[in-house]
């Protein structure tokens, strides 16, 4: 509706790129300031804000415009607590099986190595350490967020459905931060799909797969802000046929 009233000149003005060295625009600023929030207020997110966020997910790009996502909103405190309990239980099993850091547990190191080799994504040293911290009761998966968005992907979709769901999720995350809310990507939801009980309760059945989840709520303090981060090598095949690496 806004689009139809704007004339062509206005549209051109909107898409004209800025000069070199210009300050960040609003979208860039939200992207650079976004920090994962791990400390939430009890206050529930009102429905209109949540609908606004979900709407941003709906307009994400996807392969073949197949829109292979399904979003589940969980605001039931009891249900979130039960989900956390289940995830913590799985973390406890992994810790018991392969935590080699405690005294007298050195013989378990080969098990940890085996897990890391067989499934380097789920047992990468970082999530491995996070599982240990969780199993020891020092960290809860959803950080006490009042709302949890669970993201499912439709397996039958073209290309890479999980990627499309990720793009939709990032749209929602950036929108949430622009509205003053806090979010955190939590993929520790995926163990839930191992349990028939949870598959049934969340409606995860063919063709849906559990991809990830987003914790959502009002942050405590002001967590958003710029940080320093490693630059990455970018290989650049230039127009004149030369090659360079920029950082």
């Amino acid at each position, binding site marked *: 509706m806004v689009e139809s009233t704007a004339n062509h000149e206005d549209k051109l003005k909107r898409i004209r790129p800025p000069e*070199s*060295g*210009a*300050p*960040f625009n609003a979208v*860039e600023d939200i992207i*650079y*300031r976004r*920090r*994962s*929030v*791990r*400390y939430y207020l009890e206050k529930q997110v009102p429905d209109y804000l949540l609908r606004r966020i979900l709407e941003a997910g709906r307009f994400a790009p996807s392969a073949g415009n197949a829109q292979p996502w399904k979003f589940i909103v969980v605001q039931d405190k009891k249900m979130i607590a039960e989900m956390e309990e289940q995830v913590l239980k799985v973390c406890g099993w992994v810790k018991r099986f392969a935590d*080699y*850091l405690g005294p007298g547990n*050195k013989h378990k*190191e080969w098990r940890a*190595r085996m897990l*890391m*080799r067989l499934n*380097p994504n789920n047992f*990468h*040293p*970082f999530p491995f*350490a*996070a599982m240990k*911290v969780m199993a020891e009761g*020092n*960290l809860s998966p959803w*950080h006490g967020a009042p709302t949890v968005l669970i993201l499912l992907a439709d397996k039958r979709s073209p290309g890479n459905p999980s990627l499309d769901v990720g793009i939709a999720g990032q749209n929602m995350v950036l929108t949430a931060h622009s509205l003053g809310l806090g979010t955190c990507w939590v993929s520790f939801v995926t163990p839930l799909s191992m349990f028939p009980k949870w598959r049934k309760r969340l409606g995860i059945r063919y063709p849906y797969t559990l991809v990830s989840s987003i914790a959502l709520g009002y942050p*405590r*303090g*002001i*967590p*958003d*802000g*710029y*940080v*320093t*981060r*490693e*630059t*990455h*090598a970018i*290989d650049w095949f230039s127009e004149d046929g030369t090659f360079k*690496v920029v*950082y």
Partner: protein
Amino acid sequence: MPEYLRWKDRIKIESFQKLGDDFVMGKVAIDQDSCSGCGLCVPACMPRSIEMVNKKARMVTDLPLCMDCGDCVAICPENSIKVITFVELKRAFRFLDRGKPEPPRRF
């Protein structure tokens, strides 16, 4: 040109027993004078690497699993936290093609 992992590197998996050799974990410097002791950085830190001692924040000494996400830096109302060491994995999970750290840049 892109970096690769050789077989020699891929065979060995990092061990948490060998912090320093296999891992260089992240490290933040907390300015003890300007720290107001609000405690926001403690829950903000996912691997629980910051603790409060005598109303001042400091990094835990036993197993700091800091991965320099910068959440503590961003949440600190007094700007007393600074990331000084960036995480480095040295064996099979080594990060490739990384340059030196920078804040968001304008071009």
